[in-house]
């Protein structure tokens, strides 16, 4: 694949690994924020190739993992009790709610559909005027423009039976939450390239200054990741802290102005609960009051009990990088992809599932 294979070249990878090995003179702990980066690190076997001095810690950037239990229960409730057509991205379906997942709701007779674009949900709403259609709008800044656009489209076309159940989360407040945790020992960050492609890099300057940590906006392919890691390590070795952009072929400093405009038009920032982490101030998007007719939270009166998480799941510690997935006593035992205790074991981007799928048995193998 053009524009991808260049970043998966074994020789280039070997050169970067050498360079990282030469540069790192002492141990460094770096967090890759985005679940896509975690997935790529393990899928390509990069974790084992990195020198011991560079310890990668997986961040909270998996939208499936941080969507609160309560929101999933709400989606299930809407599908089961309100008879809506509940549309969602695929990997949300298997995430366990307190009683069931959306996949189980589907099996129990609810109309749950997997879509790749919320615009498709607007189309379904138009084709089913007698039904309410709800899109489970989950994700970081990356999926926000498409979700916002679906609301604008519905409004413009006068589609009244469409709404979104928002559970949007934002990256910079999550980085802050990680840094504010006393148990955290992160020394540098790989920021999520695709998020920055949308919203730009400006928000990261204050973080770099406040916490005096290197942040490198990084892509997702093996060469991207290694280059990003090298850039962080170089800064750390020199005692510097700067914002750098490894992913400049995609990320412009100002982001994507059109996408930002759409987000600003439809959403405003709000406090948000993160599964496993808790409430983070101003860390999510919700619909502006003028779009409240499209807000499933307001449209439907969902009164369900808030259930607490499984006490055995240490997802919060994993998401903040304080524990590694395999350090959880339930990892691979009670908690497995087919019977997950917490969300990070569900999505392929979830740190626990990524570990389970790709490297769970590497020690035996090595």
């Amino acid at each position, binding site marked *: *694949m053009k524009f*991808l294979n260049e970043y*998966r*070249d*074994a020789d280039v*990878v*070997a050169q970067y690994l050498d360079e990282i090995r030469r540069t790192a003179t002492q141990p460094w702990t770096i967090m890759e924020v985005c679940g*896509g980066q975690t997935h790529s690190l*393990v*899928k*390509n*076997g*990069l*974790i*084992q*190739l990195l020198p011991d001095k560079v310890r990668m810690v997986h961040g909270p950037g998996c*939208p*499936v993992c941080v969507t609160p239990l309560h929101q999933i229960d709400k989606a299930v409730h809407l599908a089961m009790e309100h008879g809506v057509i509940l*549309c969602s*991205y*695929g*990997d*949300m*379906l*298997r995430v366990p709610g307190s009683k069931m997942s959306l*996949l189980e709701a589907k099996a129990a007779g609810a109309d749950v*559909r*997997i*879509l*790749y674009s919320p615009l*498709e949900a607007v189309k*379904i709403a138009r084709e089913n005027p007698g039904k309410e259609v709800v899109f489970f709008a*989950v*994700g*970081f800044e*990356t*999926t926000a423009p498409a979700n916002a656009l679906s609301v604008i489209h519905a409004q413009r076309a006068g589609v009244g039976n469409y709404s979104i159940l928002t559970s949007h989360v934002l990256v910079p407040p999550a980085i802050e939450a990680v840094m504010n945790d006393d148990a955290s020992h992160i020394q540098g960050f790989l920021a999520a390239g*695709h998020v920055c492609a949308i919203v730009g890099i400006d928000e990261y300057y204050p973080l770099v200054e406040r916490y005096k940590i290197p942040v490198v906006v990084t892509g997702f392919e*093996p060469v991207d990741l290694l280059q990003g890691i090298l850039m962080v390590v170089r800064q750390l070795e020199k005692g510097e802290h700067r914002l750098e952009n490894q992913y400049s072929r995609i990320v412009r400093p100002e982001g994507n102005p059109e996408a930002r405009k759409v987000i600003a038009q439809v959403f405003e920032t709000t406090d948000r609960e993160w599964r496993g982490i808790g409430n983070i101030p101003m860390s999510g998007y919700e619909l502006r009051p003028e779009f409240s007719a499209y807000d499933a939270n307001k449209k439907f009166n969902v009164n369900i009990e808030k259930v607490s998480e499984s006490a055995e799941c240490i997802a919060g510690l994993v998401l903040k990088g304080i524990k590694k997935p395999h350090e959880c006593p339930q990892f691979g035992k009670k908690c497995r*992809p*087919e019977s997950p205790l917490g969300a990070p074991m569900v*999505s*392929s*981007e979830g740190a626990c599932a990524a570990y*389970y*799928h*790709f*490297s*769970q*048995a*590497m020690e*035996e*193998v090595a």
Partner: protein
Amino acid sequence: MTESEQKIKMQLQCPMPKLDFDIITLGHGSGGLLTNRLLDSGVFDLLKNDLLDERHDGAIFEVEAGRMAFSTDSYVISPVFFPGGNIGELAVNGTVNDLAMCGARAKYLSLGFILEEGLTMREFWDILLGIKYAAEQAGIQIVTGDTKVVERGKGDKIFINTSGVGMLHPRAQISKKRVQPGDVVLISGSVATHGMAIMSVRQGLEFETDIVSDTTNLNHTVMAMLDLFGEKIHLLHDPTRGGVATVLNELARDTRLGIDLLERNIPVLEEVAGACELLGLDPLYVANEGIFIAVVAAEAADSVLEFLQADPNGAAAAIIGNITAEHPRQVLLHSTIGGKRVVNMPVGEQLPRIC
């Protein structure tokens, strides 16, 4: 003539008969007059052969001395028409190929329909043409069948079951028990093509692409391969549902051996790789049709590869790994960039990622 030209020619040669009904109704499955009218409308003519023409409760035929293979499969695919074929072709090719994986040349198939009320006669006819086309290509006969109709909403247009019998190739010795360390794992063609062709037309996930399903019969290829290599072929498997990863995991589990896979050798069509990338799917877990995995004795591997690459079904064939006594019960992928990872059994269907 290309495959699609052949299909068009068949459509022209077998125009849909003029009927006094446009859609399938419950009565067409009653076994009474309407059922007969449906079958007489051309179904029997389309699939015509002496055994079917008996119109008995079952087919009666002579068998040769030797070993036989018997296989069954049900087809519930959605959508029933997809780029490169339809459920009818799949239903024939699937069972023909399951028999081929046993080392048998399929001879007779049964054909069971469960039709959903409301299926149009046009759709049914096109599916029947798919069956006829696939049966002729594979050189098999449909010798017995059954048609039931369920109420609207109780099915998904059409479900098909086919069962088949075939004679084993005299030199076929295909069994998991024969797989041993040192054996070489080959694949006969590009992976994930069929699954992504289906995905591209599935409601809600449609994307524009030229990906066409590679569904086809594999029996001619497999028989020719057994003629040449016989007992050197230790195991054959078509990696349909769950893809290559699932089949190899089952193999590793059942043989208690390990499998080393070389990512850079696994053939994936450019557009398929791109579509997988976009949807966040791993081609190793995507369903296949029209390809098979062969585990062969090491000394025969290169010749088998050469043979496959010269076969019309095997142009993209490749050696993708080998069986090892190390890391028992595990499939280990050596990534293109030199890393390693365990390829696990998938939990359920792969679900497209958020971002």
